[in-house]
């Protein structure tokens, strides 16, 4: 090493350090995956063996192999897909309508304090009400089809998004608003350039909750009264003691919920790149 290569030397060392760190991380990831598989096996293997040994009653608990068989045949033959479609469509519609209305309501209430004051008691009562209690009424109003499920979903998602939007606008750094006011922003400009973008992170945490609750609402609605949908299937399998169908359908619902969540998280990451910069 010549004396001029001191910086090069440091960079070389850094590069090696980065490589070592990378290898360490990769090893850790592999270990985590192995351990997860072990945990899963620790749950499934005794279950399967217990059923085979006659220690666990498959009538109530089914068995991993029966659930797997159910999933393979149902997903393969296509029998479950129309139900998946209905449930997903209801959940998405409910989420979309509820989210748009909730964000709009939150924004309007923050822009017009009089509106907020007047609507406060009514919205508070609706919000503390266990929304599931409204399900039978929604069936009366919107019929036994998808409408009543969407309505139930909207009644949950709306409040989540409204409250999150309001919290986001309220918690906005005062300094940002004063700075922009001093820079000559009009009320409308303040709203579009400061308050709305400033509330986006809070809206997204609302949406992450919202998709999960939308799915919950439509499944509950389907279980109460419906001819289609995964909730209806669950109610049916439970009533006819088909544990494999029950648990298999629940797994399908979990997968749908997971996909919803991944989509929201990815959109959020795209829109929030300015915030993620300091973390990566």
């Amino acid at each position, binding site marked *: 090493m010549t004396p001029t290569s001191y910086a090069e030397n440091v960079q070389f060392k850094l590069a090696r350090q980065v490589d070592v760190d990378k290898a360490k991380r990769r090893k850790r990831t592999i270990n985590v995956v192995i351990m997860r598989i072990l945990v899963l096996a620790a749950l499934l293997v005794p279950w399967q063996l217990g059923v085979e040994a006659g220690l666990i009653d498959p009538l109530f608990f089914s068995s991993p192999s029966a659930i797997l068989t159910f999933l393979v045949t149902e997903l393969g033959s296509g029998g479950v897909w129309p139900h998946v479609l209905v449930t997903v469509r209801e959940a998405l519609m409910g989420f979309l309508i509820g989210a748009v209305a909730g964000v709009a309501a939150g924004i309007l209430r923050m822009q017009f304090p009089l509106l907020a004051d007047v609507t406060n008691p009514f919205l508070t009562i609706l919000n503390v009400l266990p929304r599931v209690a409204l399900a039978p009424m929604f069936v009366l109003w919107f019929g036994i089809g998808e409408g009543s499920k969407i309505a139930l979903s909207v009644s949950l998602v709306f409040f989540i998004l409204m409250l999150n939007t309001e919290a986001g606008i309220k918690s906005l750094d005062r300094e940002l608003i004063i700075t922009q006011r*001093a820079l000559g922003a009009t009320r409308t400009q303040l709203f579009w350039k400061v308050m709305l973008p400033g509330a986006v992170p809070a809206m997204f945490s609302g949406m992450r909750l919202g998709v999960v609750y939308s799915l919950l609402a439509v499944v509950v609605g389907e279980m109460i009264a419906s001819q289609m949908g995964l909730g209806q299937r669950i109610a049916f399998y439970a009533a006819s003691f088909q544990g494999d169908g029950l648990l298999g359908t629940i797994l399908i619902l979990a997968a749908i919920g997971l996909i919803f969540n991944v989509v929201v998280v990815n959109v959020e990451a795209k829109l929030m790149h300015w915030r993620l910069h300091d973390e990566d």
Partner: protein
Amino acid sequence: MTRPGEEEVVANLAGQAGGADGISIEKVGHAFPTKDGGSILVLGDVSFSVPNGQFLAVVGASGCGKTTILNMAAGLVRPVSGRVRVGGKDVVKPLRDTGYMFARDGLLPWRSALKNVEVGLEHRGVPKAERRERALKMLDIVGLSGFGDSYPAQLSQGMRQRVAIARTLAINPATLLMDEPFAALDAQTKLALQAEFLKIWEKDRQTVMFVTHDLAEAVSMADRVIVLTSRPGRIHAEFEIDLPRPRDPAEIRFDEGYLRQLDQVWHALKEAEERAG
């Protein structure tokens, strides 16, 4: 008044601010309501004016109403009594050609540095291409060319404050209100930014009202220093700083004339605090 480009600036100011009036604070008294239903007198009959193109520094104890005066000149607070005029007109809302800078940068975290510099021009409806060009130029002036695409979270505090300076100057303000703009910076960065700001100001000669707790900053940068008493704030003393320009806040630290004036201001401030306390 022989500096090249001076006439242009004055003409510009006359056009923007409607006359050579600068900032005038006339018999201003102000109080804030307190939680227990009473009120707290913050300013008691303050009058002074900043002629066009002057750099005025205001010093005084914490809580004596300095920020309140700036907020009034910025159109963010209305005085309970008295008048505040900028460019000859009463200030009732933020003026389009007044820039306001704070100790905290107030940058919008979701906007890149460039977009942050552009924001004031956006408020004024300046077309996109023109906005971009001006913002790039301002970033270059504050020494941040090449950082336009960085987000505030990726910049150091000194760099963020530079972006804030660029943002404030981008709207081409005739009047600058500055509330301890360099207070949050380390000593080195502070000196660097003071020098940079002075260089820009000595060229453009905006009317400046500059609030600070740093007496060295006040004396090394300003044409005139006003010392306020403790709350309720009143004018205690006033000094003309007749040091030659261009000045370099780092170099001037050992200048005899500077040290003498610094000493005077320091004594005045001490006196002001003791008298009211």
